[in-house]
């Protein structure tokens, strides 16, 4: 089976996504590399996630479709900027990779991991879960349709179980 990141990229490209903004996450590594290598996509590295929300709105004003990619902890940084999306009804496609959800060994990841999906919903972003690689292309394609044809704010939230939990070496 294709890795989820490859399937997700296929769906993004087919949906006409031309800008991919991101703050890196280990779970996004392959997808970021795929976007950076693609001629059809301009990859934009952000210093903080809320920049990506504003960037996607600007891209839409200019006739381009964007995806904003981040780790679940970054959702908290986006909250006020999501008011721009809500008040102007900008299409928004987010791809959020989870921490603090499955076999998480870093307790500092647990608070945002527990509330990321609820925060998104509260801020007006519909959460579309992605749990298996087999459903990745279909799920991202469905979310892109909702965003760009349905003028909705949508986040594909990728399970930590699919990504594989980060391991921390024990001191010996």
């Amino acid at each position: 089976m294709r890795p989820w990141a490859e399937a997700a990229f296929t769906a993004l490209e087919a949906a006409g996504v031309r800008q991919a903004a991101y703050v890196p996450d280990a779970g996004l590594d392959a997808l970021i590399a795929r976007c950076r290598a693609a001629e059809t996509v301009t990859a934009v590295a952000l210093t903080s996630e809320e920049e990506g929300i504003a960037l996607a709105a600007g891209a839409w004003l200019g006739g381009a479709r964007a995806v904003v990619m981040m780790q679940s902890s970054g959702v908290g940084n986006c909250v006020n900027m999501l008011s721009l999306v809500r008040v102007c009804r900008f299409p928004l496609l987010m791809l959020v990779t989870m921490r603090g959800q499955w076999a998480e060994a870093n307790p500092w990841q647990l608070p945002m991991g527990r509330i990321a999906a609820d925060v998104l919903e509260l801020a007006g972003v519909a959460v579309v879960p992605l749990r298996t690689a087999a459903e990745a292309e279909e799920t991202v394609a469905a979310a892109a349709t909702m965003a760009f044809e349905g003028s909705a704010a949508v986040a594909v939230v990728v399970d930590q179980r699919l990504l594989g939990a980060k391991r921390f070496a024990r001191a010996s």
Partner: protein
Amino acid sequence: MSGALDRRRVVARLLAERGEALVIAGLGSPAWDAAAAGDHALTFPLWGAMGGAVPMALGLALARPERRVIALTGDGEMLMGLGALATVAAAAPANLAVVVLDNERYGETGGQQSHTARGVELAAVARAAGFAAAATVAAEADLAAAIATVLGAPGPVMAVFKIAPGTAPPALPPRDGTWLKHRFRQALLGRIEG
């Protein structure tokens, strides 16, 4: 020390010469200044989303590389989004200009001092981030050259205008964001959806 330039005159002159440029005007006084210069379909004023003007202009600049894009903002908003200067510099859009109206104050909340009143130099931050050019403009005599840079020099560029503190007469842009979005896209792209 705060500046002496008249914010409305700076913005009116810049926008009078804008040509085909697309403008994102940041929340508060910069958006009011743009409105005072004349409501324009290709000026998108923000009433909130503080810190959003520069990254929004970046997305627009990357989408329309053939058009000049101007982020018109104030010192307060620019300070909230300093990281965006690193993001812009790394993306290196040749068509993007950031204009900061710096009165060293949070004008919409009572005129409290901002960090630029305490020595932070935004143009120096932009230069250190890697902007192609960034200058602080305090004298009327330097306006023409600064505006020419904003409108034409290879970007990303920044011009920080040291403006006088104090309030300008009220001038408010339309506040329905969805309508502003549709109007902008209709004028630029000839369509609203898709």
